């Protein structure tokens, strides 16, 4: 990896700070945002050929965030990349800005709006198809949730992507094993997940989604086109970085007081578990 692992870890820490701050006020989907931090940091810092100067370049890479409720992590990262003014994060949920619970293209760098699950794999497959038609070398990455894979449109899109040999399409599953309000395996079991993807004609690998070296190896492998769509199942932990909410089924959407946000930031920096008073919220 060209960039030192320590630098990536520092970026990840900053991104988590931004996301935690967004859980104050009206709140955000903090648990889901924290599980995908290393995935996004790795992809934007190390893997993708994307920068603000390249947005009009037909040969650049793409990242579609299909599990759109984790957008605090994306916006936090955009701040760290220098794409987004950090002051705008303070506008979170303001009707006078466009920083709300799901991504939208009014924020530069967001490829497409999402929020309704199971949409961006088909959309990304369309982009990947056009890249093939034009013979441009783009890689088109889609980040999906694991619960999101309940939606049949993902599997339709994989059938089609496989039929069209879209090996420039790279699906990353944020496998935190908890969907909105239930463990995935208790509700609608997905395992054997890699086997399912392979049965749909994809190449699939499973990695520790919080380990930059592991992600690097997996994406390097996945970047080697072999005629099949590529899938990286990134095993992650919902709420990663905050032991007080890690792996908790009831900490998907979080709305914390200012004091709790401060305590969570301290917890993130190793101060021990934050005392949380906000009741877990069930959104769906």
């Amino acid at each position, binding site marked *: 990896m060209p960039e030192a692992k320590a630098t990536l870890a520092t970026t990840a820490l900053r991104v988590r700070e931004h996301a935690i701050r967004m859980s104050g006020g009206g709140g955000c989907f903090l648990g889901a945002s924290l599980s995908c931090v290393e995935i996004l940091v790795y992809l934007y810092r190390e893997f993708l050929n994307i920068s603000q100067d390249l947005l009009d370049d037909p040969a650049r890479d793409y990242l579609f965030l299909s599990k759109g409720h984790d957008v605090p992590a994306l916006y936090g990262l955009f701040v760290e990349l220098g794409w987004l003014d950090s002051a705008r994060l303070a506008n979170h949920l303001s009707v006078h800005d466009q920083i709300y619970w799901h991504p939208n293209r009014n924020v530069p760098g967001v490829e497409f709006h999402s929020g309704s699950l199971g949409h961006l794999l088909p959309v990304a497959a369309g*982009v990947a198809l056009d890249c093939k038609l*034009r013979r441009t070398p783009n890689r088109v990455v889609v980040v999906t949730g694991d619960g999101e894979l309940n939606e049949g449109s993902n599997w339709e899109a994989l059938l089609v992507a496989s039929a069209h040999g879209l090996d420039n399409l790279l699906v990353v599953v944020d496998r935190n094993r908890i969907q909105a309000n239930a463990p995935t395996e208790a509700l609608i079991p997905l395992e054997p997940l890699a086997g399912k993807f392979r049965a749909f004609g994809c190449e699939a690998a499973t990695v520790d989604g919080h380990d930059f070296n592991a992600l690097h190896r997996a994406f390097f492998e996945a970047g080697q086109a072999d005629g099949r769509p590529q899938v990286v199942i990134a095993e992650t932990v919902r709420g990663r970085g905050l032991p007080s909410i890690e792996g908790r089924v009831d900490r998907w959407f979080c709305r914390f007081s200012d004091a709790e946000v401060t305590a969570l930031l301290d917890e993130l920096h190793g101060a021990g578990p934050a005392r949380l008073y906000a009741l877990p919220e069930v959104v769906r």
Partner: protein
Amino acid sequence: MNHPTYSETLLQLAQADPRLVVMTAENRAAIRDLPDVLDARFVDVGICEQTMVGMAAGLALRGRTPVCHALAAFLTMRAFEFVRTDVGIGRLPVKLVGGVAGFLSEANGPTHQAVEDVALMRGVPGMQVFCPADEADLVTGLPYILASEHPVYIRHTALPAAIDHDPDFQIGRAEVVFEGSDIAILTYGVLFREAWLASRMLRAEGISVRLLNLRTLKPVDAEAILLAAQDTDLLVTVEDHFLTGGLFSIVSELLVRYRVAADVLPLALSERWFQPGLLADVLSYEGFDAGKLADLIMARWHRRN
């Protein structure tokens, strides 16, 4: 009345514009000749309408103009959320061509009947809706429709031309087929021919009938509709669509918005699907063939006077 087919016109437009990509969810009836000639710009995704529409959005993000084909019922309903969320919110110029809409589904039964497609598609912000009378009307409008910067829903038809259509096509402008001052018949799509024949019957009875082929229902020719309401004593809307959300609703909205009072006879499907059968039999059974339309309109006209 020689005109190129839909397929020939689409091919010609695709050859002139490399942005066009022809897609289908394994419904090739209208585009059977295109796979070989368009090669990679012909994309058959198989039987998955929602994935087709999602992929079309992705292609449009890359500057393409995808022209998507599927049966109207599945394109507008199975894939509705993809149309609304990916194409609609994205304001992408995806063209959606619905096959066998309305009575054209013939004997397929209610699963295949798109008789709410206009309501659904016009409910999507930015979406335009084109419902040509026949294939000649379709190919007349097609170059303008495909050049539109909007997403467009197209009610496909391969019916032979009922009349020599006005070659001057404008999105949002109705074709005035007959002028008249007693009754104005407003219609679109497959029922245009029946309405045209009914108009002739009524005119032969000495009733001055105006006939409008709406062509695009969104944007609709509000001026032509309001003029018809002002100039005539009875408006008749004729459509193979539910009573809610289609042309009758469009006309009602306009009359209320512009405070125009008018007598309106809506001929549509009220709270039901239609009896499946071959087109001519369906038209007759459901009371939409020219003779029955003329009788209904005449009865209403005489009751009125």
